[in-house]
Each structure stands twice: as C-alpha cells, then as structure tokens.
C-alpha cells in the first residue's frame, strides 16, 4: 500500500518535482559514500577534518607505533562524548603504544591485521573500507584507527558517553509487574528484550534509516511465529522511507502506517519490555528505533489498545472487570458530551421527570444554547489540559488552580454556564484518562468534537450516524495489511478469550489465530491434571 503511494507519486513528475529531486540530490552527503580512503594518513585526516568543518568534538590523536622493524604513523580518531575514553585508553591506546608489532612497517596492511587480530583489545574491531563506513562507525561511538599507507580504517568499539539508565517507565505504570522500561540506547533495549526471551528464535534485523541522522532501526520477531509476508511487507515499507532524519519512532510510525486519514493509531507503541515480549510471543513484530524508549509493534488490532500490561499480572476476574471498565469509560469519553447535548436539546422526553426539572431549573437564565455551552467548555478544558502538559510543573499547578477556580466555580456562579455541563465535561475528562494507551485517548478527544457537532444538529440521529460511520471506518482500517477490527471482523471466535474479557491464562492455550500463522500452541499442559492433584498430607 505504501509503495503504491510512492509509485503514484513517482509516475506523474511535474517540472516542479524534478527540480525538487535535483535539489534533494545535491543536498545529500552521498558523494563521498563510495569513495575509498587515501593511502596517505595526512590526506585522510585532512579530508575528514574538512568534511566536518573542523568540528572540535572530533579528536584526532596522532600516534607513532613502534614495531620490531621500525615505526609507523597512525591516528586514533573519535568523537568526544560518544566513546568511553577510559576504556579506550585501556583497550586501544595502551596496547597500541606498548605492544610492538612484528610485521614490517613497509607492509601497513599486515600491521593493520596484527592490530585488529592481536593488539587491540576491544570487543568488536571491523575494517572500514570507504568513507561511508568510516563515518558510520565514528558516529556510532567507535574509535577509528588509521594507519599511514593503508587505505582502510579500523573501527573498534568502545561506545560510551552519558546515557539514561534503565528506569521505571513513565507512561504505563503497573502496580504489579516488571519495573524496568526501555531507554534511548538501542542496544540496551534489544538486550532488555533478549533478557525476557532467551531463545535463538528471537531474530533481529537492523537497518539504518535517515539520510542525515543515520538512525539504527531494528526489527525484532520470533522466527516461525511472525508471518513472513507481513515481515516482507514491513521491510519493503522501511526500505521505501527516504527522509533526512528519524528522531523518534513516531516518524517511522507515520511513514509506514497503512491509512493516513484516521484518528486511530494503527501501530502500538510502548516502553515496557514485558509488553513487547508478550507481543513478540504472539507473533507480532517489534520495531526498535535508536534514540527513543518507545518501541513500535505491528500489526495491531483496536483491541490491543485497551489492554494494559497489568491485566496479565492480576487475577483474571479482576483484570476482566478492569478491562470492561476501560471499554465502558472509553465509550463514555467518546459520547458523553454529545449524548448530553442530544438529550437536553432534542430528546427531553428521555430524561426522568425529576432530573428534567432540575436541568430546566439549572438552565434558567443561562445565556448560551446547550450545544454552544458544551463546545465552549470542552474547548476550555482542552486548552487547560494542553497548557498544563506543556508548562513546567511549578507553573502547571498555578494553571490548574486558576482553571479550576475560573471554570469550576466562577463561570457557574455567574450563571454563564450551567452546572450540568461542567459536570459532564469534568467526568468526560476523567474517563478519557482511563484509556491505557495515550494515542487512543487522543482519538477520542478529536472524535468527541465531531460527535458533539452531530449531536447539536441532529440529536441522537446524528450521533448514531457518526458512530455508524466510525464503525465502517474502523472495519476498513488495516495495520500492516491486517484488519484492525480483528478478531471481531473478520471473526476469530477463539481469540475472543483476550478481548473484552481476559480469560485465565490456563484457558489461553493457543496463540491468537489471527496473528500467528502456524505454531499455535502456546501452552501444552493438561489443566485437569493440575487441578486434580491431591493435597500433600
């Protein structure tokens, strides 16, 4: 689908587009990419420094290596802050200076081999044959070793520098469950998943995306569980991305998503390794992007966005209740203001008489019609929310006090807005926070306004039209080619065990049919046997 879109863009090339493409090509740093290094060390250093505009975080340490047959000029190049300098001293500089090489200095290639295989004590030493590889290694935090007379460079790993430690995830906290969350470093993140799934079947593919940022992106999946078609589709989509920078996984999310015109998220993001691991075990694919703790999961279903990690760590009956509560409050968050407007504006006969009288009395003398009132209050609430989110915490408190006082009290007391609207808006706000995934909550925020509009013009009729359209829309959505409304449409009755309800784990013996292609058996045990055990006397 995505490639379709790229193709259709490519087919009709206007003059404007051609110009743009030319410009893009000029801007690319691709010129040096295939260019080999010069055998002269000084020339290489000079070119590197000029390419980088003499940026002073590039450290060039020139060394003279002693060998049995004489000395050779060398240079150690690294980016300050990206490498662990202490470790670099220990494992690279010290051995290079203290251990004399055996090869003749007139044969630098031999010397380099010796360095690579014997002397340098770093974990991963690789040969970089052209400038592209050289820069890649440099910016990933490796130290480069260049030898005079050698037209390749060695990149030896000593990645370091300041990074955030593994902490408890901020977005999805659980009362019970693992406390660790992903961090910004890709390697740490892959390790966190590996620590959960200790299986050779956990495969990983790495790509570098972003012309300038050269961001490492990693696809993780369980070989044999994830569908090969889906995987290939994902690879194609990732390969089609051509953009200067990937700063967050949201870039990838937006670029590979199936439908662009939808408020609903079709790709799940999460910062909990346990959630990602459980999704991998279901046969889904994880996309890890360096520089962000948010890992993407494809393909997704609407249902997944209502599942919290904690559902699986609490008893199934409690978890089921909480999940039903979540669905219920999501529906409330979506329709409550519009139902209020519809009932009060069009369907007064539906309100119980005492409540109607109360509402009439409350609305007495309120200057705005009910729909305008609801609109204003919803808007005010959204503004408040946005203000509080963006402000520093200290100022945020002040805003919430002002907001609470102005809206909660003064507006009502002055009779400008009727109290029931404030109650409805406040309650809707609370219900909208119940959604465990933030981006699904945002969808409700947007759709609420659409529903409000429909309700204020057509009443319940309008609400049902919008809800029906929404259902159609949802049934049409795809996540990496997979229907979004699975397992409801198309129907996979067996997968219903983990949708509205959360069945006990001993009942979910099979993986979701909708995702895992074959190899469905998740648990192969006779639960009767477990139950029937005699108590130990």
């Amino acid at each position, binding site marked *: *689908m995505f490639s*379709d*879109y790229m193709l*259709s*863009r490519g087919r009709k090339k206007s003059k404007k587009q051609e110009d743009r493409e030319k410009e893009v090509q000029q801007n690319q740093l691709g010129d040096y990419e295939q260019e080999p290094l010069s055998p002269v060390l000084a020339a290489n250093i000079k070119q590197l420094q000029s390419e980088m505009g003499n940026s002073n975080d590039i450290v060039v340490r020139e060394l003279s290596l002693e060998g049995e047959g004489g000395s050779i000029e060398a240079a150690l190049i690294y980016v300050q802050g990206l490498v662990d300098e202490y470790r670099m001293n220990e494992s690279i500089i010290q051995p290079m200076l203290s251990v004399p090489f055996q090869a003749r200095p007139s044969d630098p290639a031999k010397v380099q081999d010796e360095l690579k295989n014997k002397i340098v004590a770093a974990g991963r030493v690789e040969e970089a044959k052209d400038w592209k590889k050289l820069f890649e290694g440099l910016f990933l935090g490796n130290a480069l070793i260049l030898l005079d007379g050698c037209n390749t460079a060695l990149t030896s790993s000593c990645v370091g520098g300041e990074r955030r430690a593994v902490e408890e995830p901020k977005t999805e906290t659980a009362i019970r469950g693992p406390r660790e969350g992903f961090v910004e470093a890709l390697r740490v993140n892959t390790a966190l998943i590996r620590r959960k799934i200790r299986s050779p079947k956990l495969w990983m593919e790495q790509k570098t995306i972003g012309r300038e940022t050269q961001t490492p992106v990693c696809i993780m999946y369980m070989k044999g569980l994830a569908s090969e078609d889906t995987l290939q589709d994902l690879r194609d989509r990732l390969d089609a991305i051509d953009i200067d920078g990937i700063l967050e996984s949201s870039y990838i999310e937006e670029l590979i998503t*199936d*439908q*662009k*015109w939808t408020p609903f998220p079709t790709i799940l993001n999460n910062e909990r390794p346990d959630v990602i691991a459980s999704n991998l075990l279901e046969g889904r694919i994880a996309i890890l992007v360096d520089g962000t703790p948010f890992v993407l999961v494809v393909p997704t279903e609407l249902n997944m966005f209502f599942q919290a990690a904690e559902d699986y760590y609490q008893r199934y009956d409690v978890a089921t209740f909480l999940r039903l509560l979540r669905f219920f409050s999501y529906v409330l968050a979506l329709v409550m203001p519009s139902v209020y407007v519809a009932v*009060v*504006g*069009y369907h*007064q*006969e539906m309100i119980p*008489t005492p409540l*109607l*009288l*109360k*509402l*009439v*009395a*409350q*609305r*007495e*003398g*309120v200057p705005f*019609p*009910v*729909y305008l009132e609801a609109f204003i209050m919803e808007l005010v609430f959204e503004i408040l929310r946005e203000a509080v989110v963006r402000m520093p915490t200290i100022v945020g408190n002040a805003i919430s006090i002002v907001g609470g006082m102005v809206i909660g009290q003064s507006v009502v007391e002055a*009779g400008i807005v009727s109290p029931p609207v404030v109650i409805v808006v406040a309650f809707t706000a609370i219900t909208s926070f119940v959604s465990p995934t933030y981006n699904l909550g945002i969808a409700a925020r947007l759709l609420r306004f659409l529903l409000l*509009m429909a309700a*204020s*013009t*057509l*009443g319940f009729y309008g609400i049902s039209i919008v809800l029906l359209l929404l259902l159609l829309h949802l049934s*049409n959505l*795809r996540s990496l*080619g997979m229907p979004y409304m699975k397992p409801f449409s198309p129907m996979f009755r067996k997968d219903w065990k983990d949708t509205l309800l959360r069945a006990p784990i001993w009942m979910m013996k099979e993986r979701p049919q909708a995702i895992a292609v074959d190899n469905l058996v998740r648990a192969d045990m006779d639960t009767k046997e477990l139950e029937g055990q005699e108590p130990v006397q």
Partner: protein
Amino acid sequence: MRNCLPLSFRRRAKIAGAVALLLLAMVLLNSCWDLRYLDRLSVVMAMGIDSDPTGKQQLRVTMQTVLAQNAAAGNKLAAEGMAVTTFTETGDTLFEAIRKMTRKTSRRLFFSHTRLLIIGEQAARKGVYPLLDLIERNPDIRGDIAVMIARGATAEQMLQTTTQMDAIPANQMYDTLEINESALGMDYMVRVQDITRMALQEKQQVAIPAITLEGDATAGNDEKNMKRIHPDVQPKLSTMAVLKEGKLKGFLTVKESQGLSWMLSKVRSTVMKTNCPDSDGYLMVEINDAKVKMTPRKSGDGLPIIKVDIRPEGSVKEIMCPDLPVDKETELDTIGKLIDKAIEEEVQAVIVKLQQKLKLDTFGWGRLIYMQKPSLWKSIDKDWETVYPKVRHELKVKTKITDTGVRGESIVK
C-alpha cells in the same frame, strides 16, 4: 490488500475536503432543526378536562405546568413561589384549547412528561374516549398517562389545589394512587393505553380510579393551604368509577372497589379486617400475595359459569381481641376461613353491583369466554348483553395464613 487504497493520496484528500465541506454545510444550513431549548419549555405535569360550564364550547382544559426554578429544591437561584402554575382555556377540542393557551404561555407547552389526566365528572359522563385520541395520536405525548376521574369537584379545582407532601400536586395525586394500589389495592392505576386497548377489544368495560377533594374545595388555590399543618383541602383518592362504552355510569363503594381489585387480580398487598373467632374485637391480616384465577365453563343450560378462584396468602398483623391463641396452627386455619369470608363479601358485593344492577362487564367475563371457550362464545356472542346478567359464578376463596408477625401470643387479655 493492494486494492484497499485504490485512490491516490491527492484524490483522497480532495474527497475528504469535499465531505468536510458538505458536513459543514449540513451543520450550518439545517440550523439545529427541531432543537428545543430546555429553558424555553414548560413541562406539563397534568391535564385536566371539564365540560365547559358556560356551555359555549365543549371543553374546559386545564394544564398544570411546572415552574422549574421554584420546583427544583436545593437550587440557590430558586425564587419564592409556587412550584406549579395552571393555564385554563375552553375549546371544542383539546387541541383547540391547548393552542389557545399560547395567548398566555411564554414557553412552549411540553407534554412528554405529563403523567396524569384528570377528567371531570360531567365530561366523563359524556364519554372519555374522544378525550384520549389526542394523547394516543400524538407522538410527543406518552400513552402511559394515568387517568383519574374528579369526583365532587372539577378537574380544574383538583389541579389548582396545593399539596404539602409534594410541591407538584400532579405528583402527589399520582403517587397516592401508586401507594394505594401497592399497599391497599382499593384503586388501581389505569393508563390511557389500557383504556384504548380495552376500547378496541370491545369486550370489557373500563373502570377508572376517582379522586376527590377533602375539605373546602375553594381554599386549595392558595399558598396558605400549603403552609398549614392540617391543610384546608387536600386531594383524596376515591373509589373506582365504572364506565360503559367510555361513559361514566357510577362510582363503587369502598367495599365494591376492593372487590373489583380482587377480581381483576390487581391486589398486590392489602389488609383484611375480621371479627375475632370467639370474642369481641377485630384482628387484621396483611395479604402479601394473591393468586386469582377465573375460568369459564359451560353449564347444562348452555349458559357460562365463571369459576373465580382466589388464593391469598398473608400474616396476622394486628390482634385487638383477648384470648386468641394464635400460636396454634388450627387457630390460623380458623382465621384464614374468616378472611375467606371477608374477601368473599367484597367480591360478592361488586358482582351484585356490576352484574346485576349496572350490567357492566368490567370483569372482562365476555373476553374470558371469548379467549378460553370460543365455541361457547359463538353461541352467546349476539346477545351477550342479555346473557351477561344471567351468567352464574362460583366463588372460591382459600386464604393461607403463614405467620403471626414477630409476636406470638397477644398481650390483650
């Protein structure tokens, strides 16, 4: 999968734009059609219909509407004043009178919450069917409005009487009927839709509860009435009124009314009074459950016999006579027999009144035969009018006394 997105991004954007424009047009052009502002509505709680006393027009219609700002208790903005107000107009039809009221009302009368229809005695004698058509025909008015007949007062007076327990008089009258039905069963609620259904079936006559004013009827329309400990006048539920083809024929006595409730299985809970078995004084039994079954049967002379089987269940709740050993099982049976007799008396009274005197098939015997013995009905269908008074009945009451409350022996010696 490839066919999922046949349109290019650009086309889709264009279509989305067009749809958005249309939606906007829809919103702006229909300008909230049929939107009713809540604060522009006047909620009608009860309707009253009398015959026009001047005789110029057919009807005199009274609407009791709520003044919400006064009615909603706990509202800070509430002004001092009555919770309701009434509007009265005359007209040949209900709708005419209602539309005439727009000369007085600043808000639109809103009938969706109307729960009570009071029909004046005179208007009821002329016939209630024509008065119900508007309610049944109009989608904005509910069919489950309770109907009452004003006895000894006009419907207008009923609706203009202030009440103490409930600031809205319509609510007080409605709730009184509900309470009476569930706790005593003298009257039972009859809704507009019940009357319509019976009228269409043509085999059962309608009975409607009646309500009257106790006290000085003219003193009701005053705040003072509400502010006294004992009000000068208050609405009081009367007995059931019986109608023939929608025309009021008379009122039952309390005993007959209770009997009618028994017959129609409307009794959910009631109390029965009886003399003590061996001494002076009375005892009371509260009936908690009653099963009533009427079955028709053909007798030798070709006339139907209706077997009425009533099986109440209750407990002794008050004993005001000495030396009654209620802890004895046999004594309970004796009491049960006495209660049987008391119920029988009530039922017999209403059968005599309705079948013999007024010749009204309010019990629905005709319908019962039609439903259960169609062949028998065919033979008497044409002259049911004359057959009905001759229909015999077998009454069988069997009361079961389950307990004597939380006390055994009485302290009355």
